[in-house]
């Protein structure tokens, strides 16, 4: 069941002016609930932009418009800074011969997917580098402006998804090594970008639209667990709509991939895309079975991952002085009262 507020949000974002009130009684709209919904989905700037574009501000209370206009203006100012810093960062990385490709929101903005740079809310600048450049990037960023909190370098069995998030001038950056967490890399990984990395250029690089389309859907379906709990994010739906990937948006392509199919089935109720996915008894049985196996695999992998991490941590206590020092500090707070900790403290100190 879609609430009247969500229906209005969808109509404002995707329908032409003449169809915005289709099936909606504007007097039944609770604007407080609309504010909660749109802000939860990070859609306030896009809402204001579309209200303005379609000249429908008369449908909303004045103070509501005034408020979302302020949010839009602040967001646009922030995105202007973000783009400037992304370009500076790209120059710095190329100067040090580090090949990189921007991802997610920053890539969408740089690819001019949106009509206005104030529409999309972006948390940080995401970019991916090749595994071989990991140390180089750490050094370059440390030399220039490294504001990350003190962390200990630990050995990881699996490559981390990204290096530590840190502040570059005013906006946070996240240098990725991979696209998804280790347990999900069998579905989607950085091999998809091999050809993009091969392109010799010193200009700002963003992935193709079809890659951005896939990455957006896999992130919401796998990382944000949309595939498990049928969660939808209006920000992701808006990204997909704006990407306008006609090649990827065919029933044949959608049916080929169960995650993409599930994304479109979840948002089918909003009737945003002109796609009608028919499900047969056999296909829905197959989907349920796949979902069960997928969830089971994730659970098993998570447990294995935790134990591997704990084991590697214990082994590293013998070789990593920094880690041992931190462990000792933590133990020293409690060791007076607890015999086992007291024993561990004395043992590690030796």
């Amino acid at each position, binding site marked *: 069941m879609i609430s009247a507020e969500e229906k209005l949000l969808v109509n404002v974002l995707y329908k032409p002016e003449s169809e915005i009130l289709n099936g909606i009684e504007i007097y039944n709209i609770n604007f*407080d609930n609309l504010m909660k919904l749109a802000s939860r989905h990070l859609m306030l700037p896009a809402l204001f932009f579309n209200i*303005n574009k379609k000249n429908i501000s008369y449908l909303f209370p004045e103070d509501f418009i*005034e408020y979302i206009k302020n949010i839009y203006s602040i967001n646009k100012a922030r995105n202007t800074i973000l783009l400037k810093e992304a370009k500076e960062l790209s120059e710095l990385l190329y100067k040090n011969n580090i090949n990189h490709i921007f991802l997610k929101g920053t890539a969408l903005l740089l690819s001019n997917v949106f009509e206005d740079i104030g529409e999309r809310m972006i948390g940080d600048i995401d970019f991916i580098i090749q595994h071989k450049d990991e140390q180089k990037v750490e050094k370059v960023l440390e030399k220039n402006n490294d504001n990350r909190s003190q962390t200990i370098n630990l050995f990881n069995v699996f490559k981390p998804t990204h290096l530590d998030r840190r502040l570059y001038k005013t906006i946070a950056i996240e240098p990725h090594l991979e696209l998804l967490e280790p347990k999900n890399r069998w579905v989607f990984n950085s091999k998809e970008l091999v050809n993009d990395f091969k392109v010799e250029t010193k200009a700002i690089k963003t992935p193709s639209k079809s890659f951005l389309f896939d990455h957006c859907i896999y992130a919401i379906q796998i990382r944000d667990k949309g595939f498990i709990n049928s969660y939808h994010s209006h920000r992701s739906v808006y990204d997909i709509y704006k990407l306008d990937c006609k090649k990827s948006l065919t029933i044949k392509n959608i049916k080929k991939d169960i995650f993409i199919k599930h994304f479109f089935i979840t948002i089918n109720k909003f009737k945003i895309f002109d796609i009608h996915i028919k499900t047969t008894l056999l296909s829905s049985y197959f989907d349920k079975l796949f979902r069960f196996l997928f969830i089971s695999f994730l659970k098993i992998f998570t447990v294995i991952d935790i134990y591997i991490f704990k084991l590697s941590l214990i082994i590293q206590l013998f070789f990593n002085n920094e880690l041992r020092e931190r462990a000792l500090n933590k133990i020293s707070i409690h060791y007076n009262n607890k015999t086992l900790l007291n024993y561990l403290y004395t043992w590690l100190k030796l």
Partner: protein
Amino acid sequence: MTMKKENKENDEIIPSGITRKDAIKKMGKYATLTAMGTFMILNPKKAQAQSASGGESDDSDDSDDSGNPPPPTGWGD
């Protein structure tokens, strides 16, 4: 004494025609309904400084008498 001063400040009418008290009330209502994620992304300390110069001038230049918000700058480019 302090109470009086506060009341005076709150009742002060700013150029847009509403009192400061009203302005705080209006912003407060929707600000309390806005999800934390939105504020966390906007990082007000840094973004406000940038928008204050551009945003305010937009208000005075582009607002029409009907109270409709001005078009976003750059729209139609």
